């Protein structure tokens, strides 16, 4: 049997996915900490202060990975949406609905830390800069997908509707982004941007990459936790949940003996 097809059926089965995710979670958490701790230490302590922005540039180590992740999560959702619509894989729908709040949170974190960063740098909490505006629109798209899923009671329909909206979003996001950039350059002078500089110093870059990797594992960690929770919630009355509970009970009884 083709290995891809085998994986496809296996990943489609909650009974198989649920314990696997449970086994993976501690490892993913360990990897997250492995990247987070040196990333935070290097970013907050050993990286040199910026010659223009002083110490306040350090918020970048949360802001930039969060902003990257808010886009990465959407991309992952879009791929899952194709899988969900074309091959009707239910786990892909579970993945999307578990990823939506995470992506929205990353977008919100990016916006809030951006505001805290903007206050000392630009002298304003918020400016209608192209990047900020696109990030805000992205947050609203996430919230729209979440609202649509919650509004539809039948979760099979909700999953399909949400996948369609996710795909509509992925076609539109580049258009929205570039039109906002275009609008912004027309209406106001370019604002201060850290990344327009030709390069970022290597001592500052390493912690940033470490933090970006840590955020990837954080996403995976929360995603696995949320997927497990969503699966149990939706399938409370189905056979595989009962089987897992019975297995767990048997295991605990064995420990007591």
């Amino acid at each position, binding site marked *: 049997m083709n290995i891809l097809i085998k994986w496809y059926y296996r990943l489609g089965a909650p009974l198989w996915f649920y314990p696997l995710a449970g086994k993976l979670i501690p490892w993913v958490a360990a990897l997250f900490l492995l990247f987070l701790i040196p990333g935070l230490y290097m970013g907050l302590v050993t990286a040199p202060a910026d010659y223009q922005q002083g110490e306040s540039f350090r918020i970048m180590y949360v802001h930039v990975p969060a902003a990257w992740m808010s886009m990465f999560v959407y991309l992952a959702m879009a791929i899952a949406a194709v899988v969900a619509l074309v091959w009707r894989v239910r786990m892909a729908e579970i993945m999307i609905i578990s990823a939506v709040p995470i992506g929205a949170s990353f977008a919100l974190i990016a916006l809030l830390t951006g505001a805290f960063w903007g206050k000392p740098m630009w002298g304003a909490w918020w400016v209608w800069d192209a990047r900020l505006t696109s990030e805000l629109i992205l947050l*609203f798209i996430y919230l*729209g997908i979440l*609202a649509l899923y919650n*509004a539809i009671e039948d979760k099979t329909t909700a999953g399909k509707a949400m996948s369609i909206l996710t795909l509509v979003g992925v076609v*539109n996001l580049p258009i*929205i982004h570039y*039109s906002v950039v275009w*609008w912004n350059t027309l209406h106001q002078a370019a604002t201060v941007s850290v990344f327009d500089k030709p390069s970022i110093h290597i001592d500052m870059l390493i912690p940033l990459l470490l933090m970006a990797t840590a955020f990837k594992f954080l996403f995976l960690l929360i995603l696995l936790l949320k997927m497990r929770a969503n699966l149990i919630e939706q399938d409370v009355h189905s056979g595989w949940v009962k089987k897992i509970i019975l297995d767990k009970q048997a295991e605990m009884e064995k420990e007591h003996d």
Partner: protein
Amino acid sequence: MNSFLTLVKRDLLLAYRSRGEAFNSLIFFGLVILLFPIGISASEKLLAEIAPGLIWIAALLASMLSLDNLFKEDFHDGTLEQWALSHHSLISFAWARLLSHWIITALPLIIIAPMFALSLNLPTEAIGVLIISLLLGTPLLTFIGGIGVALTTGLKKSSMLLPLLVLPFYIPVLIFGASAVDVSADGWSAAGQLYILAGLFVLGITLAPFAVATSLKVSVSQ
């Protein structure tokens, strides 16, 4: 193609028989425009400056609110289900519905828009561009909005949901539409903005019906 024309003809005839309804979105359009001078300022200079964006926002809101009943009746009386079951594709159904909806709600709005533009002191040179930008932009609003309506059409409480889904996707249309009028009011050529709007128009009317048809299928199977 035949069924497509029949459907458009039927919708237009129905709209013609109940003309009162078609006026609702026009009245709404006028009311929104009325709110701005009252809420912000009646200063002629300021109004002329914000007029392009203001007319576009009013048109966008009017177009969005008129969408609500786009598929609702067909959904409740079972027409939509029959279409989904028949050998005609839902895409041509979606196309016909969106087209006739645009003719009924947006076309009258485009015709009276210059009147409101003049009341806001928009320079007369910009009126032509305003009409062209609305002609290119409002079909996009209807077609993109159609996706949102198709997704929410089977739901009981969907009135607040539709704007949430649809408004983010309206932003590019608003940017280029308002900017085209703005630039031409300042005496420059709006060709660039209009070309982009035309590009988006072609993209929208080719791709959106597929999304509308798929969403309708999902809503019907509910």
